[in-house]
């Protein structure tokens, strides 16, 4: 039996091609099962995420695989498809599981997606000895890559960096209160990232009150009229500011006015506006930690660099592990 992987991903195919071959999670098992109906195909697992669709098969020959895919999916333009055989399939699966093949290097979601795809294929009876062993070992190696290298360390986006910093200041974010000044997309993403980690109350203020109400509703928060945001500072831990104002909106006297009421608790200010919304002098107040968009971008860049520097170690780990395992078909 030959071990074959055929697929397309964000590097090999544009979204209009990828979307044609996307398989919804609920149909992954069924699709894998249908592939077994083609002559010469013994086992199959279908992985489909927003960035990739991949078919892992054990079959009598590569030709049998290609014929099966052509018949079932009308695969069409071959220039977008890549093909791996034998040991390269195992190496590819480990790279994907370890996040080395992802658009955001080291991202963690893919590991769960592959596990889910395998579980569905297994439940539909589409896997047996060869693919079972391949995937189980692949998960082991993927886990080792994530735990023993720095491939998933550090946030690689502005919102992620802001969340990491908030956790460095407040620890667990449960019960943390946030005010969003200016209801732009970037501030929405950042606030949403904080909420997803446990931030409980979100206040939103915007020059257009309707927009504030809309964003507050999206996040289960409360809208505050733009001329009433300053007193809210007394009760929040995080301020995300992203207005389109040509001058500073948050000034030292706004924070000075509420310091006593806040009992001088730490205050994390995130300024993602250009020009900046928060007067840099605010950052000189003892308990204030002020970060602007450039600093957050730099943090994300450094995290990406650190992850890139781990690729070689990850590849080495994959090869060492595969050498030891001697998987069937590789």
């Amino acid at each position, binding site marked *: 039996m030959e071990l074959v992987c055929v697929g397309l991903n964000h590097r090999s195919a544009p979204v209009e091609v990828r979307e044609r071959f996307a398989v919804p999670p609920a149909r992954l098992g069924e699709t894998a099962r249908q592939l077994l109906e083609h002559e010469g195909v013994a086992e199959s697992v279908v992985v489909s995420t927003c960035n990739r669709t991949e078919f892992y098969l054990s079959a009598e020959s590569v030709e049998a695989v290609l014929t099966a895919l052509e018949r079932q999916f009308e695969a069409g333009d071959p220039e977008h498809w890549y093909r791996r055989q034998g040991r390269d399939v195992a190496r590819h699966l480990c790279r994907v599981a370890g996040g080395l093949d992802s658009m955001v290097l080291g991202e963690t979601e893919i590991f769960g997606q592959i596990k889910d795809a395998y579980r569905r294929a297994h439940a539909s009876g589409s896997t047996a000895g060869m693919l079972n062993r391949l995937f189980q070992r692949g998960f082991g190696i993927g886990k080792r890559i994530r735990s023993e290298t720095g491939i998933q360390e550090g946030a690689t986006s502005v919102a992620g960096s802001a969340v990491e910093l908030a956790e*460095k*200041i407040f620890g667990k974010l449960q019960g943390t209160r946030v005010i969003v000044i200016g209801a732009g997309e970037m501030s929405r993403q950042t606030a949403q990232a904080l909420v997803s980690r446990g931030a409980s109350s979100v206040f939103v203020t915007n020059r257009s009150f309707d927009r504030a109400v809309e964003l507050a509703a999206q996040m289960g928060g409360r809208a505050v009229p733009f001329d009433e945001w300053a007193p809210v500072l007394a009760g929040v831990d995080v301020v995300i500011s992203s207005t389109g104002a040509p001058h500073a909106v948050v000034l030292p006297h706004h924070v000075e006015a509420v310091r*006593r009421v*806040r*009992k*001088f608790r*730490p205050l994390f200010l995130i300024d993602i506006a250009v020009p900046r919304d928060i007067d840099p002098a605010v950052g000189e107040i*003892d308990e204030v*930690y002020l970060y602007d968009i450039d600093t957050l971008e730099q*943090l994300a860049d450094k995290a990406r660099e650190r992850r890139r520097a781990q690729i070689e170690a990850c590849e080495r780990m994959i090869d060492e592990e595969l050498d030891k395992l001697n998987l069937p078909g590789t």
Partner: protein
Amino acid sequence: MGGGVERWFLILATILAALAGVSGMMSLRHGHRSRWTLPTMVGAMLAQFAFLSLRGQARGACPLLDFGEVLVFLAWSLTLLYILVGPTYRISLLGVFSAPVVVLFQAVALLPGMLDESPQPVTEINPWRETHAAMSVLAYGGLALAAVAGVMFLVLDRQLKEHHLSSGLFRHLPPVRELLVSMVRLLWIGLAMLTIGVVAGFLMPHDSGWAHLIAACVVWLAYLALLLVKQVRGITGRRFAFAAVALFVLSLSVFAFV
């Protein structure tokens, strides 16, 4: 060598604490936490305990009769509290920061003249004096650990303020809020024990005057004031941490002379 076998236990405790600190720092430079800090500090604590037990047997009383013994008792109290508090509250790196303080105390205790070379048994034991001495030094262990947490806070605060965020030290320091909470807890623990020590101090005989007890009362009041300000009025983390460190260093210096 003066002091007999117990001195070797003290040397062993000092070497182990130094190892804990150095290995912890070296691991941080490589971007990860050392798994050996806690076990090594446990080893140091056992060696300190052996030293204090032997000195206690020789004295027939709590071994707090010369400056060297006080320093070792203090180092033991600090180490013990770190072992109890660090893992419980998950304050990572507390051991790495505590180890140099332990090494410093014990290194001073090992200097010539700090430990009686032939400790004499105590002829008259007063339970209040014993309680005063033991509780005060145990309290100082808690206050020392609060000062260590204060130093950790000041380091982290500076890194956050100046955006120096890529070091292994930064990545592994506990969050700002947890450090502040730990400092408050440790100060309350220290103050509670110091209260017992001070009360016992009033009940013990005062053959050598009141200066020592007055100093203890001033220290007690200063810590109480700091905690009340923190709880009632509020104080910035930086000032609170600085005050915890400064009060500890000042009060220790005062007791060295009073």
